[in-house]
């Protein structure tokens, strides 16, 4: 498992990101993206530092963090696999794809395998609707998923 940084370290690294971006118009989302990139999630200990830097209440920052699906409360697995579950992919059997991936990995959506290798998430559209069913593995797009491609993905995240 990855080591969690100490709270003082989180605070100082967060403060640097806030300092860097606070002069943007509407800086909170860019800051949260920066923090998630830095830590892999938005740590609780970052919230008061952001609030302080932007002159907001902690509750306001917490409200924004929890509104958006992207921001994680805890780190994801080493790989993140997103399976599109929206209509175009449904028409091409995304249900069956999801069922197969869940079975092969032994986890449900929003879960991480016990060895921390992969987090599985649904996503509602990747804009690959003429190449359905589609997925995204660590930011790389994959279209026309079939059993072979699924096996390849599972092997990759397990290795």
């Amino acid at each position, binding site marked *: 498992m990855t080591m969690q940084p100490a709270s003082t370290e989180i605070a100082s690294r967060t403060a640097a990101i806030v300092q860097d971006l606070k002069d943007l118009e*509407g800086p909170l989302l860019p800051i949260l993206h920066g923090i998630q990139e830095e830590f892999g999630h938005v740590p609780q200990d970052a919230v008061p530092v952001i609030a302080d830097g932007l002159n907001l209440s902690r509750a306001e920052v917490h409200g924004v963090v929890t*509104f*958006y699906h992207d921001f994680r409360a805890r780190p994801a697995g080493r790989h993140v696999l997103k399976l599109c579950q*929206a209509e*175009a992919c449904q028409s091409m059997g995304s249900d069956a794809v999801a069922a197969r991936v869940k079975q092969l990995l032994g986890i449900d959506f929003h879960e991480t395998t016990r060895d921390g290798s992969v987090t599985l998430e649904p996503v509602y*559209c*990747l804009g690959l*609707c003429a190449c*359905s069913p589609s997925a995204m593995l660590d930011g790389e797009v*994959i279209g026309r998923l079939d059993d072979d491609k699924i096996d390849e993905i599972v092997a990759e995240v397990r290795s």
Partner: protein
Amino acid sequence: MIPRIYVPGDSGALALGAEKVAKAIASELAERGIEAKIVRNGSRGAYFLEPMVEVATANGRVAYGPVKPSDVKSLFDSGFLTGGHHKRWLGAPDKIPFLAKQTRLTFARCGINDPLSLDAYKALGGLKGLQNAVAMAPADIVKQVTESGLRGRGGAGFPTGIKWKTVLDTTSERKYIVCNADEGDSATFADRMIMEGDPFVLIEGMTIAGIATGATKGFVYIRSEYPHAVAVMNKAVEIARKAGVLGVNVLGSPNAFDMEIRVGAGAYVCGEETSLLNSLEGKRGVVRAKPPLPAIQGLFGKPTVINNVISLASVPVIMDKGAAFYKDFGMGRSRGTIPIQIAGNVKQGGLFETAFGLTLGEIVDDIGSGTSSGRPVKAVQVGGPLGAYFPRALFDTPFDYEEFAKRDGLIGHAGVTVFDDTADMLKQARFAMEFCAIESCGKCTPCRIGSTRGVETIDRLAAGIEPEKNLALVTDLCNTMKFGSLCALGGFTPYPVMSSITHFPEDFKPAPARVAAE
């Protein structure tokens, strides 16, 4: 001249293996000691042919597709660098029927060249619209856009010129242009394609909007599910700034305009304009009540033009070739062209830009060539997750804002999802409610609670519990959501639900009868 080989870098092509194809070509070139340039272009949008590799020959471009990495060796053996014949040979790309039948105005350049080459952009007519605009009075630009008949391509269909006029007529010192690139509707990828394949056309359109309304700052709000589009747009803005397209003197004129790329965070509702504005301001993406209109009090309380990517990307051609040229295409009150995105279970999926007026049947059967599974078409959802499901009986509906509305549907952002006869419409109706429950911003009760009650009620229907009573309840609930919700998420979720019930009643019959019928 060294040969040029074009391998798309568009996400759709990448999803189908374009990167591996590019690598295979590069290593084959090295192995054979051939000097050639690999250009990463955008996609022309014929996704059933992607990855589509093109070669520039003495007789023009020759396309090959869909190319697999394992085809590369034999392509070289067949002399593809000079257009040689091969089983993947498609001939001149603009003669491929799917592309030849289109009318490309907004997507005129998309997929042809390196999207980040400003010279290539200019060589194909880029920046002419902006050049005309900087020499005009703002009111005249607005007039030209109004006269073109351009309506919001995000889905609402509001006349773009009228929105711009409202902002122009305000007296605020600070105004904004916001581009809604939160393209979250399933079946839609036109915004993504433009941003990845011809980013300068969007920058040009936004800059024209700025000059026309007196706004000096723009934001493009791109969804986080589009990392490639974000990367291309960021680079394009940088290039445009260096070239003086953006900055304090746009193309050497006294007009100032600059822009920033912002990334969403996975909230579908932020595609709704007021929720998007809140998100840009760093708030929860909760919908705002209207009025005040964003044109009067938008981003940070200032007058704001908020337009969809395709609306803004259609402006340069209007400013280049004139309002009448654009208006000549289309039918009724739907003027110009619309990039139809054919998706789902379809043989020839992709982007098809054409004048308004094709029938749904022509789009699905002729252009899309029917289902990819080869089974009969059962339903077609037009307009994304909030659009109605149409049966074959409505295939004569022309692609036009008003004609779809007459039949209780909408064209939305022009995404078309095809389903074959294995689709279960009760399941689709349930999904519409479930999606609304997942994505509701929570501000208004009909959407927040109605969607959850909708899922429960449809589950009872599926279980055969008091079917008539529960069907009446779903209908009533849809009515409440349609008229009582603050925005289109809650307000339009009834479209897929009610159209499923209306057009496919057999799928909503109680479970025992459904088993008996099968």
